[in-house]
């Protein structure tokens, strides 16, 4: 089949309590070349306030029939025509605006559909074994706990780096929260489609909304919700670090550790894939690789593999690298150059911008070797395949491995694994030949979302 091109502007309306809402002058959504491809209605604060009021008054999506509803929504998302867009048109637009390779977008469509259909059971995985979901559960007679929401309205200030980020908030909906999604202005298509699919499957307009806003109004949304997840950089994380109502999702700083007892050459596919699959734009892509011993051969091998990746427009079926507007690519390039001072460039030292000639550029991979495991560069996470390779030894200990979303450990050292699991700032530990981006429904991403959304309430003497 040929690529699906859309003619004429696509309108992405807000999806509010009274259905679609279009502003007087919708904001342009541009693709990686700067061409306008859609018009997104950014709602003003007064609209957000009214929408939050309606969410607060709405009932939770009933648990009865929820699995069937979610399955239907997943199917609709993956195959239906939603908001006037067929799935191929949708995927083309996501690819052109976010710069994510089309094959990555397509795989994400199928993956998201699966996550949608399993959202209820995934959310259930986080329920403490002492708590029941329903107070009518007979086990309560003995005096137990009921799993209860900490609030009613959940907001997500989403990012546009990967369509998969929208899998998370489905669990909030499944847990009975009424949900407002603020889409990324760069890639609003995925949440628009997902919210539309869920509406069509039976979720009411006052239970789930899409509220696109400008940056300032986003704060009105986050503050007005009982619980919110906010994606962003270190600044966002710092801003909400002490706000118990907000769960910030910051840089992943995902890492791979290879100890001397393991031959990295047997795992080169996994290492390269962890860096560059998914376009290298996910928080679960590896930012740093630590090698016990000389890191140079590994850096050289990873660089050799990544140097072969072709620079293509994102909608090309063979594309694997992320694409962005040329000026942003140049800004990223000069930023990387300044950060990389004092390191050894195995790949990307001569620049990473591959001009595609239409105002966009592919971001070529970068592989740098740092001198020691405490090098500051190891914290620099950038939205393309960009990896720092460092030497590591036992004397360095756990310290360089801290502050990590996914740590893949290629090791046979049990004591070390125990230490990694015990480290509070490492969110997930994958052992052996698992790429860092591996995820599955029901497996926590940054702990169970329900740890943030739910509590256990003692109930005694309930009928």
């Amino acid at each position, binding site marked *: 089949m040929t690529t699906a091109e859309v003619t004429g502007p696509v309108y992405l309306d807000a999806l509010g309590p009274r259905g679609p809402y279009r502003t007087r002058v919708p904001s342009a959504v541009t693709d990686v070349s700067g061409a306008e491809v859609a018009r997104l209605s950014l709602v003003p604060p*007064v609209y957000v306030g009214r929408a939050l009021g309606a969410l607060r008054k709405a009932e939770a999506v009933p648990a009865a029939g929820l699995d069937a509803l979610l399955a239907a929504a997943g199917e609709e998302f993956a195959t239906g025509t939603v908001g006037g867009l067929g799935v191929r048109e949708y995927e083309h637009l996501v690819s052109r605006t976010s710069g994510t390779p089309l094959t990555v977008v397509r795989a994400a469509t199928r993956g998201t559909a699966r996550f949608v259909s399993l959202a209820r059971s995934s959310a259930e995985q986080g329920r403490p074994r002492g708590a029941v979901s329903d107070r009518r559960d007979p086990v309560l007679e003995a005096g137990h706990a009921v799993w209860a929401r900490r609030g009613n309205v959940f907001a997500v200030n989403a990012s546009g780096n990967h369509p998969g980020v929208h899998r998370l908030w489905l669990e909030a909906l499944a847990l009975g929260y009424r949900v407002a999604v603020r889409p990324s202005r760069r890639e609003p298509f995925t949440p628009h489609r997902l919210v539309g699919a869920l509406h069509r499957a039976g979720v009411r307009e006052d239970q789930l909304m899409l509220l696109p806003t400008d940056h300032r109004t986003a704060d009105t949304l986050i503050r007005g919700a009982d619980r919110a997840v906010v994606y962003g950089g270190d600044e966002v994380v710092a801003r909400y670090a002490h706000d118990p109502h907000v769960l910030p999702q910051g840089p992943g700083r995902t890492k791979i550790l290879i100890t001397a007892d393991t031959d990295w050459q047997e795992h080169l596919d996994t290492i390269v894939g962890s860096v560059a699959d998914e376009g290298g734009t996910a928080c679960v892509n590896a930012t740093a690789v630590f090698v016990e011993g000389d890191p140079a051969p590994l850096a050289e091998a990873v660089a050799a593999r990544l140097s072969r990746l072709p620079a293509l427009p994102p909608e090309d079926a063979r594309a694997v690298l992320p694409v962005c507007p040329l000026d942003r690519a140049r800004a990223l390039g000069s930023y990387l150059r300044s950060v990389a001072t004092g390191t050894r460039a195995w790949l990307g030292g001569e620049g990473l911008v591959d001009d595609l000639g239409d105002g966009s550029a592919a971001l070529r991979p970068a592989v740098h070797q740092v001198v020691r495991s405490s090098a500051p560069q190891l914290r*620099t996470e950038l939205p393309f395949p960009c990896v720092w390779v460092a030497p590591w030894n036992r004397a360095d200990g756990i310290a360089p491995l801290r502050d990590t979303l996914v740590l893949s450990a290629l090791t046979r050292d049990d004591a070390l694994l125990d230490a990694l699991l015990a480290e509070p700032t490492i969110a997930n530990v994958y052992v052996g030949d698992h790429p860092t981006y591996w995820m599955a429904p029901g497996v926590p991403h940054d702990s169970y979302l329900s740890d943030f959304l739910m509590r256990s309430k003692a109930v005694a003497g309930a009928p």
Partner: protein
Amino acid sequence: MTYESPTVLDAGPSDGVDPDEFVRAAMRWHFDPATGSRYWLDRADRLAFDPRRDVKGVDDLMLFPDLTDELRDVPVADLIPRGYGGGARLLNVFDSGGTTGAPKRVVQLDDWMRHSTEQVDQRLREHGLPVGAQWLTVAPTGPHLVGDVLQRAAGSLGGPGLSIDMDPRWVKKLVAAGRSNEVESYTDHLVEQCRRILLTQEIGVLAATTPLLERFAREDDLLERINGSVEAIIWGGTHMDPDTRHLLGTEVFPDVPLIGMYGNTMMLTALLERVGLSAAEPCVFDPVSPYVFLSVVDPDTGERAEVGERGQVIVSHVSKSMLIPNNAERDTALRMRPAGGQAGDAVADVAPVPTVQGETVIEGVY
């Protein structure tokens, strides 16, 4: 001794004087060593033209450079034209909001206050505002012009005014520092004060800033009360985007006329929304002849924008008491034709100048 001013310069807003003639009279007054202010006389030599000879009408006001930055530190006594002699009645010194650094200062003399209040009063009566109804104004007072304009308008319409004060500079500071919790607490504090008044007093006219009206939209008891008994809402002091205006007019306050007010300190008065516009039409503000002239220009070239196009708002204030020509505001607006063949432009859908953001790199993938 008081200098005998040409009567044209004493004209009220209803006297229908020719604006070009008024401007010429103002040039003679402000640049005559016997009558001009120290501020303008000190600057006359620095001008590349002779205002008394070269400014022949409203259009020639654009010869002036924008000197308003100097109003940040000029002694206010220097602003009062000498021609008033000892008879100058200084009522207020107003500060600009201070978003672009230290505030700029202007003076309000008694004669100007009467002209300003008269034109606001006239426009509000054209909007059908009730006479003698009780007002609640929720707007900054003290050094801020907007609260003064509203309270004098209430008085002029025979309405006893209740008011809630606010400190916009503190709020701006909190916003800039990212202290949104405190912004929220302060807004709650204002809403609580308004609630006590709205629920216990018979309020016929509510005048408030846009953020406050947006905030009222979340308070069911206040909405019921306002929609039930308030006869008009005046909004001003800040911008209101067209979507918000439409939502407030049709969904939040469907039963109350919403009247926009656009003013700023350098204008020394406020412009009222043109009468008869629906919530779906652009909110048009006409100039106030012969005192306040507007033009909408391309911010880069200074060329006049086309009618219907957006550009930067340039404001000139010309009165016997003050001359503030060619002041580039931090506002953009659509250029419109003014009603009644008035000089210069009218403006619509006034919005803040967008902040320019360079391409910066924030680490992380989001």
